[in-house]
């Protein structure tokens, strides 16, 4: 797997955790002993983001601002951010996840689940 893609996945996962931790539904569950898990997650995010090349991070942040996330899984050939079916030439390629790619429609970074 592309090493930058691996960091982007970790960053995407942390961002999803932050979004949950900030939601009232999650807070109500009382699954954290910590009073402010969001702060701890933000520190983890900072560490993770610092490993990315500045241009990639800048693009990720821009996408996150626009769509609420910077990376999305492709499931069954469909980008789960814009729900467009990706071209067959991309879907059938054997080197998926070996290099950093974006959805040709919405521009989000993609991870191929299959």
């Amino acid at each position: 797997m592309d090493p930058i893609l691996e960091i982007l996945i970790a960053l995407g996962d942390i961002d999803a955790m932050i979004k949950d931790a900030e939601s009232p539904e999650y807070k109500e569950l009382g699954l954290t002993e910590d009073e402010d898990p969001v702060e701890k997650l933000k520190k983890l995010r900072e560490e993770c983001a610092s490993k990315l090349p500045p241009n990639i991070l800048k693009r990720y942040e821009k996408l996150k601002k626009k769509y609420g996330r910077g990376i999305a899984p492709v499931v069954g050939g469909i980008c789960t951010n814009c729900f467009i079916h990706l071209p067959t030439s991309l879907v059938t390629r054997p080197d998926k996840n070996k290099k950093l790619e974006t959805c040709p429609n919405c521009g989000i970074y993609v991870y191929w689940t299959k």
Partner: protein
Amino acid sequence: MLEQLLKEERVILDLKSKDKESVLEELLEPLNLPEERKKLVLEALKKRESIGSTGIGKGIAIPHTRSVVLDDVYLVVGRSKEGVDFQALDGKPVHLFFLLCAPPQDPGTRYLITLGMIANIARKIIKSDEYMKIQDKKEFIDYLLRMEKEE
């Protein structure tokens, strides 16, 4: 909703692991994820644990995470007869695990709703040690579904 997620092949009645990291790994086994994806989900679970243990006390833990590499919501239930040192809130070994993981976006927010259901079941389960006695996976699922409905 819980009924759809509880599957016999995702129930482990006799976990072998003794420590936190290996039990998370063992709980991921039934998902049959390719090694690369399994490693990434494990890392996400460990990150979640690093901000506070999901061992909620009284022998129960609910490790959970979102991950970009997942295509659906998955629930794995695992039981350890000897107990696992999971740095639970009460410091006691954990005997029952509910591992829940989901992609960042899931239709109908199944992930958060299911987490709520599990937390609710956990509160009822700790009233007796019945969950330690069941020997059959299907019976175990039926027991959890009964607990879900119980007032």
